[in-house]
């Protein structure tokens, strides 16, 4: 079953076409990474799915209905949240806002306590849920934010750069948690990312947005030097580590197009070093 179906979608903001002819679908229980250079319209795509920005052309169906604001079956996690720097809010308070934050008026919902408890348990955040958010580590905050977003067990989960500004260990932890949430809730998960490497083990599909186009494919189809170089408008090389992991590496312009009269090693960078190791191993 499809959690989302887009047909010939086009979006225009302030008279400018951001992208057009977008046709793709997301399956329930799948994880999709959205890649693309800055300003390509990744966040705009999320806003369209959330019903905050209308499509200029084409059609979009989200969980069997037209996109609408405030749909509880769609969960959204922003990249930056003011809450993270607030001293007077614990993780539990913030997760609670995911439950009844949008509700006006007096009175409390008795179900809240139990629903919040379950969200904290699912995300493994119970042990630090009662500490102020600003005292937590980056990875802990992301886990709390995932609990906030999954309070209603949404069937479509939109995560905007959930791995940004995390160290490698925390990135791996969040990737595992995203996978766990998908497995337990059966949600279709969309992850906007800059770096495909940490996500590669769990993603089923890649949407790439560049040059006013949205295209979809499997990881194998996208993790390909020609496609990635075109996507970023910058030379990209794929490196296979001794254990078989494929690492995407950006190249210096000069290395990608060497001078005919020999290569200057005076500004040898990490990227070049990586690429050279790769060559040795394959030869």
């Amino acid at each position: 079953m499809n959690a989302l179906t887009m047909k010939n979608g086009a979006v225009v903001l302030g008279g400018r076409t951001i992208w057009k002819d977008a046709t793709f679908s997301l399956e329930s229980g799948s994880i999709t990474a959205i890649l693309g250079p800055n300003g390509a319209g990744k966040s705009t795509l999320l806003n369209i799915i959330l019903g905050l920005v209308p499509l200029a052309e084409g059609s979009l169906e989200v969980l069997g209905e037209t996109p609408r604001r405030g749909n509880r079956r769609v969960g959204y996690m922003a990249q930056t949240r003011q809450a993270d720097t607030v001293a007077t809010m614990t993780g539990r308070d913030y997760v609670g806002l995911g439950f009844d934050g949008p509700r006006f008026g007096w009175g409390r919902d008795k179900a809240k306590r139990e629903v919040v408890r379950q969200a904290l348990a699912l995300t493994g955040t119970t042990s630090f849920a009662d500490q102020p958010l600003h005292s937590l580590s980056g990875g802990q905050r992301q886990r709390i934010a995932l609990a906030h977003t999954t309070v209603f067990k949404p069937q479509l989960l939109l995560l905007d750069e959930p791995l940004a500004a995390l160290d490698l260990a925390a990135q791996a932890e969040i990737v595992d948690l995203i996978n766990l949430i998908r497995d337990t809730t059966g949600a279709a998960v969309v992850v906007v990312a800059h770096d495909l490497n940490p996500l590669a083990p769990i993603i089923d599909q890649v949407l790439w947005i560049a040059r006013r186009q949205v295209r979809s494919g499997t990881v194998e189809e996208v993790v390909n030097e020609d496609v990635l170089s075109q996507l970023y408008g910058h030379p990209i090389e794929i490196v296979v580590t001794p254990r078989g992991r494929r690492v995407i590496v950006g190249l210096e312009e000069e290395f990608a197009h060497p001078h005919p009269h020999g290569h200057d090693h005076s500004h040898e960078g990490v990227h070049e070093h990586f690429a050279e190791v790769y060559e040795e191993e394959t030869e």
Partner: protein
Amino acid sequence: MSLRELLATSFVQHAFYAVTAVALAAGAVGYFVVLRRQAFAAHAIGHVGFAGAAGAVLLGLSPIFGLLVLCLGAGLLIGFAGAELDDRDAVVGVTLTAALGLGVLFISLYSGYANATYSILFGQILGVTWSDVGLVAALSMGVLLVVSLTYRPLLFVSVDAQSAASRGLSTRAMSLLFMSLLGVTTVVAIQVVGVLLVFSLLVAPAAAAEVLTSRPLRTMFLAMGFALASAWLGLFFGVWIGGPVSFWITALASLAYLAARTTDATRTRRARRVVA
């Protein structure tokens, strides 16, 4: 007159009801001012109100009507134009300057300005009329009622605007709502402490409360408590010892903040020693 007789006089009684209502409203709204880091907006609205009050006095009206019109107007303008964080400071700054300039003009046009100006700038809660006190108390209660009904969405928008928008809340509408609450609260706080000392009721109690607790609702109630304690004691000292009530309230609110910071620093040091 003895202290007991002084406290029983009608003007002290009226002032007591007024400061009680004002302190509760200012403490509650002040929590959101500190949470949303909009202290500058609160400051600016007070100064805009100065122009309104001066204009009303010039036209022979009660200053409070001028205050209401301009403070609400400025609040809505800042809320509307400055909903995006990037240009908020510029919008607030320009609004503030334009209004202060107008205030100066109005005062220069009004011949008997000295007394009126003084009470607008520094507050004169013991001098306001009974009908003004009634209006101030009613407005404060109105603010408290609206805050109690919109507490959760206000908190949500303040700590995670994007997620709140995705859940169907309008960031702009909530910003306008908050700035109107702030506008009305500034008007009533000005009656007690004046334009220049409006921070003592709007910011200091909430800032002190924020240092001492980590739960949202608890912080808000603590801010209301600090504001109320400063207002009651300030009124009492003003009547008992003398000196302007606004001075006493400001001094007490600042002391509360200082005490909170000191307590927090001591606690942190002790916690570190335990860890070590």
